[in-house]
């Protein structure tokens, strides 16, 4: 089987899976909730793949699901009979389609988490099945345990399992992911594009200090002129109003805010990682959180 070459793919990791998709596929829709949701991937010709996850108490009848899916998708063509359905196992997934050019679906049930995973692709042409869809399905592995990876929209991080993704904002060339641990530590990863426009003539330190203030932080110290993984970087310490229960109500400050900002001049992106938590909480090491490119 032909496998997509390494430089033609990019890794993705989200709730339940780690996988690799063609490099020109971009996520165009996403869900943050771990229980139920989907990711949508598109290239310039339209939607290329949908990955979804949902709770499911017991293993479903996958062939019946595939048939009802095909019947709902293929209006105006003769009804799909069970004998028309062609299935094969690819990695953990059972892939099924009726005829060349019809949509195809791949289903995997994870009994240990009682979760049903599905990939839907728009056209079951044999060449696309072999060169694109099967390699994607084969590359899918569970994204469990600790640390857990999240790779989407250019942000690649690895966080302990007790950190859950709470919020995500995706604007063009401006992405923010917020994680929160069970002990209420907050971890925010940001990624900006068009650095000249973002900086607006300011240096990194002036920009970031202004930015943190606009986010409600009290900036204590900014240490400029550092390098991180060979890129210009700065380190900032800040206080911010507590986010939970009495801290929020009484306006108590959390005083352990630490941030790292770096400018990847080759990639033309600015990244930052901000962490804060209740007093005495241990913050994560950015070296371990941020997955290096390549």
């Amino acid at each position, binding site marked *: 089987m032909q496998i997509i070459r390494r430089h033609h793919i990019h890794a993705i990791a989200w709730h339940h899976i780690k996988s690799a998709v063609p490099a020109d596929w971009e996520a165009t829709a996403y869900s943050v909730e771990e229980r139920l949701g989907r990711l949508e991937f598109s290239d310039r010709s339209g*939607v290329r793949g949908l990955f979804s996850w949902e709770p499911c108490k017991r293993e479903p009848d996958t062939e019946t699901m595939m048939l009802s899916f095909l019947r709902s998708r293929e209006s105006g063509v003769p009804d799909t009979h069970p004998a028309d359905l062609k299935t094969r196992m690819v990695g953990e997934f059972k892939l099924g389609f009726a005829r060349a050019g019809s949509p195809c679906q791949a289903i995997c049930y994870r009994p240990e988490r009682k979760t049903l995973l599905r990939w839907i692709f728009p056209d079951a042409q044999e060449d696309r099945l072999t060169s694109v869809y099967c390699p994607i399905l084969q590359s899918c592995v569970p994204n469990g345990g600790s640390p857990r990876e999240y790779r989407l929209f250019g942000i690649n991080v690895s966080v302990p399992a007790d950190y859950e993704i709470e919020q995500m904002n995706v604007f*063009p060339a401006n992405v923010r992911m917020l994680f929160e641990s069970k002990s209420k530590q907050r971890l925010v990863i940001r990624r900006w594009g068009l650095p000249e426009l973002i900086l607006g003539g300011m240096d990194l330190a002036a920009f970031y200090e202004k930015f943190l203030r606009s986010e409600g932080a009290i900036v204590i110290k900014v240490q400029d002129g550092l390098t991180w993984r060979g890129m210009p970087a700065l380190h900032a310490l800040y206080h911010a109003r507590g986010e939970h229960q009495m801290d929020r109500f009484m306006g108590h400050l959390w005083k352990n805010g630490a941030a790292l900002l770096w400018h990847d001049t080759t990639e*033309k992106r600015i990244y930052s990682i901000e962490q804060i938590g209740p007093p005495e909480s241990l913050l994560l090491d950015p070296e371990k959180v941020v997955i290096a490119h390549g």
Partner: protein
Amino acid sequence: MAKNRLQLKQQLASIPIHNARIRETPDTDGTLVVEVDLTYKGLLRFMYRGLKLRTTRRYRLDGLGLEVYRMIDGIKSFEVLIDEFANKNRLTFFEGRAFLMQYLQMLMQKGLVAIGIPNSQLLRPSPLREPS
């Protein structure tokens, strides 16, 4: 309204063109001043002179905005413009598309640019739903 939304393929094949009636004046600071004639609708069409309403409006383009404005030559399709803009600024295709779409929409509202849309009959729809 949903029926009037363009398919992705139509959108990418569309060709932005400058309004032929705008006047461009390069400024010494590298910016470009563009002046566009205003049109009034309804009763104002007959009364704007009497009411001494303004007949033109000026806009100053600079930085990335000017760069994009200069990329529009009436030949390049929206897809080609996205590719050029995204490659130059190391953006992904959809990031570039979102930026340019927003900016072109603004230029259209101000009357600086018009968009030529190709015949939808020539474009085949995708089997899955397309991103809007």
